[in-house]
């Protein structure tokens, strides 16, 4: 019954490293999202994509980029990891116009620690 899969549950990276977080969905949904979740700040949108090769900035895109070469895969890239990017990263997928008897499904999350 897996719908959204994130490549890693836990990740530890060094400051300055380039980091790739991968997300794959098996629902054939058009929209995919990357959020980060921090205590006291809730879920904040980093980037989203509404179609292959299309992307839009969310609320906190600085220090991140994304790639969507195939419909089922949405990658989040930390160009040069910094300690303030230590967080829980959550990927979600939903159909176009979702909200009409549909919903966005989330992956299990990736806990990233930058040291």
């Amino acid at each position, binding site marked *: 019954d897996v719908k959204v899969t994130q490549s890693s549950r836990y990740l530890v990276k060094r400051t300055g490293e380039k980091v790739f977080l991968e997300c794959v969905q098996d629902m054939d949904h058009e929209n995919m999202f990357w959020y980060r979740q921090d205590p006291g700040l*809730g879920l904040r949108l980093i980037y*989203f994509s509404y179609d292959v090769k299309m992307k839009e900035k*969310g609320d906190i895109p600085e220090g991140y980029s994304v790639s969507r070469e195939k419909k089922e895969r949405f990658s989040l890239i930390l160009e040069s990891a910094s300690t303030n990017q230590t967080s829980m990263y959550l990927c979600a997928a939903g159909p176009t116009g*979702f*909200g009409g008897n549909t919903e966005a499904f*989330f992956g299990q*999350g990736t806990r990233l620690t930058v040291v």
Partner: protein
Amino acid sequence: EDQVTQSPEALRLQEGESSSLNCSYTVSGLRGLFWYRQDPGKGPEFLFTLYSAGEEKEKERLKATLTKKESFLHITAPKPEDSATYLCAVQATKGAQKLVFGQGTRLTINP
């Protein structure tokens, strides 16, 4: 700007003690209001979507209701396994199809 505020931040109940969680929102036009449950270290799990004022949805011990300004998640006779963080989010009719989340309510049910 679309905003979601959840209260209380944390709530402790005894098993069987019913209560309600609040989600207040401001949005240009509401496409949908979502409730999720999140267990520690895991991704949010979808519970309900509500679309219009007056709508109600139920799932086991949970019932979600919606007005034009807020939503309530009512928990009836909760059990310890209902302990989790409950997240509320809104999706606007205009602009991008993103979800705007509240900060969540951390619910603890003591046996």
